[in-house]
């Protein structure tokens, strides 16, 4: 091994991005490019009585205007691709443009295509729509009520699905020595990738082929779905996602506008571009979280946890987004027991339609919600017993000698050393000293608090057999092709579709490490369905554990074949030939002796094919379609320390300490960057972010002026560290790192704030913990105290 695996290599994708030479979808320019704009419903729930587009059509720059009725025979509905089993799921039709009814503010009503972007926007104002406004419902619990407005006629009580798992019974809680319950609310969040979504489509009528540039986390899934929606054979569609400016789950779904752009290009015979405005992004790109969670734990007086159950009412929005139903069910439910030895667990989930933007995956997707309620209720359990929350955790953490560990909900945790992680974090935090300081400051009327999370998460999605069993309408394996060129340079084609996570670098490190060649000799190609056989994309922290291992296997297949050729060149048997640092040599002879041949020399022979061993074909390429046998389970311990301003309720983050374990680390710099970003997003949920609708379904937090995105000065410097417990079930020993920060940080921050507020008798507060909420809680607390 060359040492490149595990080292801080500068990113290969950066040169183009820091010089302004990236190719994001909106950067694509084509001759005769037309621009689309979409008229969106200003009402959350209304009947469309009449749409008059005649004035818009008179605009000299307008090429076409489409309404729902115009296209209903031409574009199929947008499907849902995750159907949780035994959940009686109602997949109501979701048309690309609303036909007779709009169901949320932002629902598409008409699309204008013009030869100029500004003209397209102007023409939207020339369309008149007559609506009959209906009562709307935005809260999922209210939506289940008998009198609630009905979003879809075919979903009674607005229930989209009902899913359950686990075996914990009422008696387990009723008869437990200690029983703690609480309702937690996961507020709605807006992913806000900095790049708004965009689509560009170009259709060649003579060949019948459609090329689309898309802001996609999974171009092959997009191709598959668009093929069905547009009625175009899959091999005639090419999807390109070259540079994608962040996704965080919001670029997984196949969106109505994407289908419309493809359709318009086919219909009009000119290339068409549509790019979302930020205001539009707030309204129509999928939102995240939004769950009402009733949680109970049972335990013993000594602090042992025995059972947990969660009742989850999840707000799915107006339609079921592509992966939406999988989030509050499978991705949330199965990880509810977390890092603790719960003997029993039960999860009961309702997915509910409302007149709001559809929800889908948002960084962590289900796992942050599960971790939040677990880590919060463990703190409440500790409070109930008068025990230190760290002690309760230590007592219940699964032991390092218990892996593989089988959970109450049927998962098999692969490996872990949770105690080591906790100890390392505690050492960084200086926990006892903090507790002393806390006491001293309290007597001076100052309130500091500490909160922690000891999490395990499920990622590296995932074994395809399991994917099928849990209703995901696809596989979750990954493909890789390693093409070695005659000069020994390598092009890798991966089905994963990174969009900022840095795999152009880490994947090159995997190849460089195994082949003993410089990473500059390796190019990683992703995001192009014509060049890459098949793939399932980037989400669920799967790129490295699944795509990375697919790559490692493909590289090893290259080495396998090259070894045959090398043996032939060295006039030795295959078994005698060893490979290290890019050199094939005969066992017993170290590199540097005459009995050796370089990788490049072997590659050249593979292509010249003048003298190949019998039965060996020319060329050198490795392929793999890797299906993991299990998920991977990263874990770690995060601590947050805060001070609450007694006068204003403002929260200052004093320190943030994160110890994460994602198995073997390929590039510590990139892994640390993933943790930083995750923490910032998780703290964003805890303290600032939250989408709010009024009763009529208007989004009140629809711009960056109202929706508080974290800024640089909101944070202290994060202190991060890693432990490395190799993943035992994959070749590279790696787990995912993209979501750990988001999963761990939200409860750590809230636990810290509630800890600081302990003198005020505050048990819980709903996120985000805005200054006013905290201040009001202190006012109440000091009155009752």
């Amino acid at each position, binding site marked *: 091994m060359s040492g490149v695996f595990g080292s801080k290599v500068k990113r290969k994708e950066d040169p183009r991005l820091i010089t302004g030479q990236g190719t994001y979808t909106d950067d694509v320019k084509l001759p005769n490019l037309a621009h689309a704009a979409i008229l969106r419903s200003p009402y959350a729930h209304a009947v469309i009585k009449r749409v008059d587009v005649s004035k818009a059509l008179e605009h000299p720059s307008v090429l076409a205007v489409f309404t729902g009725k115009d296209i209903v025979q031409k574009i199929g509905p947008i499907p849902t691709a995750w159907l949780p089993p035994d959940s009686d799921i109602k997949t109501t039709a979701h048309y690309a443009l609303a036909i007779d009814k709009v169901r949320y503010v932002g629902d598409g009503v008409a699309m204008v295509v013009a030869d100029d*972007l*500004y003209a397209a*926007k*102007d023409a939207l104002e020339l369309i008149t729509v007559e609506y009959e406004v209906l009562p709307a419902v935005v809260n999922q619990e209210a939506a289940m009520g008998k009198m609630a407005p009905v979003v879809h006629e075919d979903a009674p009580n607005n229930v989209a699905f009902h899913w359950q798992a686990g075996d914990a019974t009422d008696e387990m809680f009723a008869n437990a020595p200690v029983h703690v319950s609480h309702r937690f609310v996961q507020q709605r969040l807006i992913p806000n990738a900095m790049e708004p979504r965009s689509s560009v489509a170009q259709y060649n009528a003579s060949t019948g082929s459609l090329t689309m540039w898309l802001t996609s986390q999974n171009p092959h899934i997009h191709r598959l779905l668009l093929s069905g929606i547009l009625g175009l054979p899959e091999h005639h569609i090419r999807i390109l996602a070259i540079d994608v400016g962040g996704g965080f789950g919001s670029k997984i779904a196949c969106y109505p506008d994407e289908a419309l752009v493809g359709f318009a290009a086919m219909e009009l015979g000119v290339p068409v571009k549509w790019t979302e*405005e*930020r*205001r539009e992004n707030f309204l129509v790109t999928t939102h995240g979280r939004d769950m009402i969670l009733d949680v109970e734990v049972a335990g013993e007086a000594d602090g042992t946890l025995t059972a947990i159950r969660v009742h989850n009412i999840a707000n799915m929005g107006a339609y079921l987004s592509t992966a939406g139903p999988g989030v509050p069910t499978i991705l949330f439910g199965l990880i509810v027991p977390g890092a603790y030895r719960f003997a029993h667990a039960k999860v009961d989930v309702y997915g509910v339609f409302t007149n709001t933007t559809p929800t889908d995956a948002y960084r962590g997707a289900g796992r942050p919600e599960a971790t939040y309620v677990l880590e919060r209720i463990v703190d409440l359990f500790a409070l109930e017993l008068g025990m230190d929350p760290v002690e309760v955790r230590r007592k219940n953490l699964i032991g390092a000698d218990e892996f593989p560990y089988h959970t109450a909900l049927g998962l098999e945790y692969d490996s872990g050393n949770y105690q080591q992680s906790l100890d390392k974090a505690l050492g960084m935090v200086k926990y006892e000293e903090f507790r002393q300081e806390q006491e001293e400051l309290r007597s001076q009327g100052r309130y500091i608090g500490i909160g922690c999370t000891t999490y395990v998460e499920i990622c590296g999605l995932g074994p395809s057999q399991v994917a099928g069993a849990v209703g995901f309408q696809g596989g979750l394996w990954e493909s890789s092709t390693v093409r070695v060129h005659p000069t020994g340079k390598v092009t890798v084609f991966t089905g994963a579709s990174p969009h900022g996570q840095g795999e152009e670098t880490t994947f090159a490190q995997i190849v460089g490490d195994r082949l003993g060649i410089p990473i500059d000799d390796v190019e990683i190609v992703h995001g192009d369905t014509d060049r890459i056989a098949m793939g399932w994309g980037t989400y669920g922290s799967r790129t490295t554990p699944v795509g990375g291992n697919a790559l490692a296997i493909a590289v090893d297949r290259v080495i396998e074949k090259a070894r045959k050729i090398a043996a032939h060149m060295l006039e030795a048997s295959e078994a005698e030939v060893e490979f290290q640092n890019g050199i094939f040599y005969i066992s017993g002879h170290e590199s540097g002796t005459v009995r050796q041949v370089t990788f490049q020399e072997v590659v050249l022979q593979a292509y010249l094919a003048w003298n190949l061993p019998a039965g060996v074909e020319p060329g050198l390429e490795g392929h793999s379609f890797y299906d993991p046998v299990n998920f991977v389970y990263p874990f770690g311990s995060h601590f947050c320390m805060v001070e609450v301003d007694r*006068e*204003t309720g403002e929260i200052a983050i004093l320190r943030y300490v994160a110890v994460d374990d994602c198995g073997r680390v390929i590039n510590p710099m990139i892994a640390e960057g993933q943790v930083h970003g995750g923490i910032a997003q998780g703290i964003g949920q805890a303290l*600032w972010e939250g989408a*709010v609708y009024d009763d009529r379904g208007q989004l*009140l*937090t629809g711009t*960056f*002026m*109202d*929706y*508080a*995105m974290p*800024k640089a000065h*909101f944070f202290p410097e994060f202190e991060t560290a890693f432990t490395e417990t190799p993943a035992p079930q994959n070749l590279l020993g790696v787990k995912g790192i993209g979501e750990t920060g988001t999963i761990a940080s939200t409860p750590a921050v809230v636990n810290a704030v509630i800890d600081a507020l302990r003198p005020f008798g505050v048990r819980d507060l709903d996120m985000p913990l*805005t*200054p*006013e909420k905290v*201040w*009001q809680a202190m006012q109440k607390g000091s009155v009752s105290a």
Partner: protein
Amino acid sequence: MIPSAFAYERASSIREAIELLRASGGEGKLIAGGHSLLPMMKLRLTSPDTLIDIAGVEGLRAVRVTGDRLTVGALLTHDQIMTNPLVREKLPILAETASQIGDLQVRNRGTIGGNLAHADPASDLPAVALALDANLQVVSVEGSETYAAEDFFLGPLITALPENSMLTGVSFAIPPAHTRGVYEKFAHPASGYAVVGVAAVIGVNQGQVNYIRVAITGAGDVPYRAHDVENTLLGRPLTPATISDAAKLAAEDGVMADDLFASAQYRAHLCSVYVKKALLRASRIE
């Protein structure tokens, strides 16, 4: 997010700008930095027929001291104000306030004239304008007029500016040498605008407060002078206790706004806390 179409004119003098405004028949607007106007136009909350660019008008970028007043040209950007040596020497509170407006990019472009004429109720400058007894210099077809800051801000985005007029400069009173002025702001986490912003100037002579101005922005529809706070402290010794007592009256002279981020009750409380904060810092009792 593209403005509606408009005609564009460049004015090279105040007179020309006013003429162009008049010619637009009330449908024209002046643009300098454009950082108040363009965001509104992009949202199509306003769609002027004509934009008259006054960035090229000469003579509106000076900072001058005349007697006990300092005058700032309307076209100076927030960054130019916060870094201007004369402002920093004579009116550090103005430099401090300018440094808290928006962000680095906004301060490089937004102008004091545009900001005040726009009269956003959560803007920072109106507080300091009130606290420094600012006079806003306005030129119209009728000639030149001066508006006291307290008569200028009438409501959210509403000012006393007459039709076809132009704000050309602002003169601020330079408070007596023994005073100190500060600006304290509780910023909205999303927009950076003031949820509550307090400009305070205070001076003590022979153990008693003999000069005080407290003005608050962001709390309601219009910025206001906290006269109750001022009157309570005037003539009294300056101690944490007297400050604390007076600060309790901070919301008395205003009408508190109530929104998603902060209720009226909480805003009133913030007014008190931030008046106290500002007065303590201005008094160097921190």
